[in-house]
């Protein structure tokens, strides 16, 4: 089943990372007959392994290797060593994600044209026509089994959604439903329907939520063309005198340095690890790191404008029952600068268990103001804000040579300052979120600060012109034809939508391009 490729086989595509980008790309290429070696820094965990306990699961799945932070974002103060809440495992963060699968709105592909000049923002249009994405979005929705798309039914609403929906209707919102979710509302694709168990963030033990870990990865392996090497941490991408990449050095599960030759290298390690790898691969020919002639590698880090609103009612809600993200309000996702900001935001229900609520409701807070909130945990409802944040050149992932990981490699520092547009959007969303719950009789509301980031975007952005970004419209680096970026780091702008569906659609599209270019002998 699993194809063993030789380290000296220079005909393989090496993909670094096996999440929504890398995991899907690996399967799509393998299905086309392309030989693929996927290097995954984490181990392999399947539904039987997942733990429905917040901290135990965090210990099992989360990427907790050292990172540092700076900037005015509150995460740098409250979670200084944990800028992101993402996964180190086969399948990447598709084990952890909530499943929200939304297409970009057309105007979001053309942010600079739509929003115009925004002071301090490094806006750019995506070099992709939104119409070109339609078919890829459909393919991605079918792959993920997204509800409310292509004839699939929606999920039923849980208690948390019912509170949210009633408040939304009271405010006059119209686009309110249980979401387009990569969670089966009926048995689909060999996976069962959602049992409303909660713990979507901890890995779905039923397999009802799509994850690359138990779909694309084993299917790719079954072709005989994909070999996934677990617990293998990529250290450096090598190149030849012509400036073409030739292979990847990585630390294997025993900590030994190995070199896998490659015909093509695709980087899909998330918006921190992907630029880190490019920067750590600096050479005499590429002293600023690979694919970095623009100086844009690591820049334009985006994390969505987020925040949460929790509310306490005089009667029980029990928000933890059922899907973690159980519904959405889309009315505010439009671009309407009269609200005081460009771009828009989605409101999506969210529930945390008591242990994570204690950690995230108001990090660092103590005393009765804090504890009386938790006293009414059973009567709480919650929602999450996800909106488009402005790309800024100074929001940036850089190497921190003062801190090394277990392999002695410099870690990343993640610098983030809110843009005034981000702040205006968040304040608007807090106000609307609180009004929604007030309309249902909330006795107390909590505009809760952002968690460590789950939507990590930018840092290797896509651009029409080589001087504006790192990769072209196919995720191919402007500088090196056989080096690709295949994850959310290639996002030109963030849009208001949860990014996974777009990452998957771009990976399917990129697989078509890579296979075609290989057969043309262009790469």
């Amino acid at each position, binding site marked *: 089943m699993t194809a063993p490729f030789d380290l000296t086989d220079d005909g393989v595509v090496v993909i670094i990372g096996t999440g929504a980008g890398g995991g899907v790309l690996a399967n799509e290429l393998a299905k086309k007959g392309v030989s693929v070696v996927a290097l995954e820094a984490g181990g392999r965990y399947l539904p039987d392994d997942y733990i*429905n306990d917040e*901290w135990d699961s965090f210990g099992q799945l989360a990427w907790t290797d050292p990172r540092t932070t700076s900037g005015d974002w509150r995460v740098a103060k409250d979670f200084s060593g944990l800028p992101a809440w993402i996964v180190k495992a086969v399948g990447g963060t598709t084990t952890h994600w909530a499943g929200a699968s939304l297409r970009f709105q057309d105007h979001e592909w053309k942010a600079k044209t739509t929003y115009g000049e925004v002071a301090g923002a490094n806006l750019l249009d995506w070099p992709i026509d939104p119409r070109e994405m339609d078919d890829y979005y459909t393919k991605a929705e079918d792959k993920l089994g997204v509800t409310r798309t292509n004839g699939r039914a929606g999920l039923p609403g*849980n208690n948390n959604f019912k509170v949210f929906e009633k408040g939304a209707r009271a405010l006059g919102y119209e686009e309110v439903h249980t979401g387009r979710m990569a969670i089966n509302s009926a048995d689909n694709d060999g996976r069962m329907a959602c049992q409303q168990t*909660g713990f979507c963030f901890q890995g779905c033990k*039923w397999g009802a939520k799509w994850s690359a870990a138990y779909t694309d990865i084993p299917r790719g392996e079954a072709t005989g063309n994909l070999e996934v090497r677990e617990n293998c941490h990529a250290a450096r991408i090598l190149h030849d005198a012509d400036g073409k990449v030739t292979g990847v050095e990585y630390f294997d599960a025993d900590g030994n340095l190995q070199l896998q030759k490659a015909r093509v290298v695709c980087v899909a390690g998330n918006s921190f690890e992907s630029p880190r790898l490019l920067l750590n691969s600096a050479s005499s020919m590429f002293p600023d790191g690979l694919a970095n002639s623009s100086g844009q590698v690591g820049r334009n880090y985006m994390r969505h404008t987020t925040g949460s609103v929790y509310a306490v009612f005089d009667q029980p809600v029990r928000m933890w029952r059922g899907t973690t993200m159980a519904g959405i309000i889309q009315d505010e996702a439009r671009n309407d600068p009269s609200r005081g900001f460009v771009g828009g935001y989605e409101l999506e229900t969210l529930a945390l268990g*008591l*242990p994570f609520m*204690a950690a995230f409701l108001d990090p660092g807070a103590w*005393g009765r103001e804090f504890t009386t909130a938790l*006293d009414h945990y059973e009567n709480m409802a919650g929602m999450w804000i996800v909106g488009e944040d402005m790309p800024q050149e100074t929001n940036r992932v850089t190497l921190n040579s003062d801190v090394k990981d277990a392999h002695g490699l410099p870690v990343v520092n993640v610098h983030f300052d809110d843009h005034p547009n981000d702040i205006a959007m968040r304040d608007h969303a807090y106000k609307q979120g609180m009004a929604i719950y007030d309309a249902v009789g909330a006795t107390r509301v909590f505009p809760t600060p952002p968690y460590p980031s789950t939507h990590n975007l930018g840092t290797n952005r896509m651009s029409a012109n080589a001087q504006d970004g790192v990769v072209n419209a196919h995720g191919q680096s402007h500088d090196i034809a056989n080096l690709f970026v295949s994850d959310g780091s290639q996002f030109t702008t963030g849009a208001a939508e949860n990014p996974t569906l777009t990452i998957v659609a771009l990976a399917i599209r990129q697989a078509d391009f890579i296979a075609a270019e290989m057969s043309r002998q262009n790469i």
Partner: protein
Amino acid sequence: MSNTMKTLTRRQLLSQSAALGASFAIGAGFVAGRAEAENWAMEVDHLAPGTMAVLIQMARDIYPHDQVADRFYALAVKGYDTAEAAPAIEAGVAMLNEAARETGHAGYLDMGWERDRVAVLRGIEDSAFFQQVRGGLVTGLYNQKAVWPIFGYEGESYSEGGYLYRGFDDINWL
């Protein structure tokens, strides 16, 4: 409580107790609930018993939940009773007691009103000691499975088949 809380020996321990603080019985090598109904006692090996008593009260004052009994707070800070952790904790509690004395009380446990103790805690909240204790409590207290039912939290439901047929949408007051 296994080996950390020896309920059966509480009565014996109390017979040896040297001092009764506001909330706790403090004896040679142990801290215990003062009220018979609380029925708990905790032996300490590396911290002075009086230090552990202050630590338990401090834990409650940081995250006060009146419906949560002292034994849960005691368990939440039990982990500091190690040779490695004890010196910093002893120093921190000494600092806390000194801050209490500066307000005219004999010590932290001699302050009867929570508001007075909280005022003292506010004065040291930027210290490494306070942040260590507060940060440790976030998991030490709220990640105790025995505490969850007090807040109504049900924990995992996979073993019972989820909530699809057990009330995921049973809200009836909207």
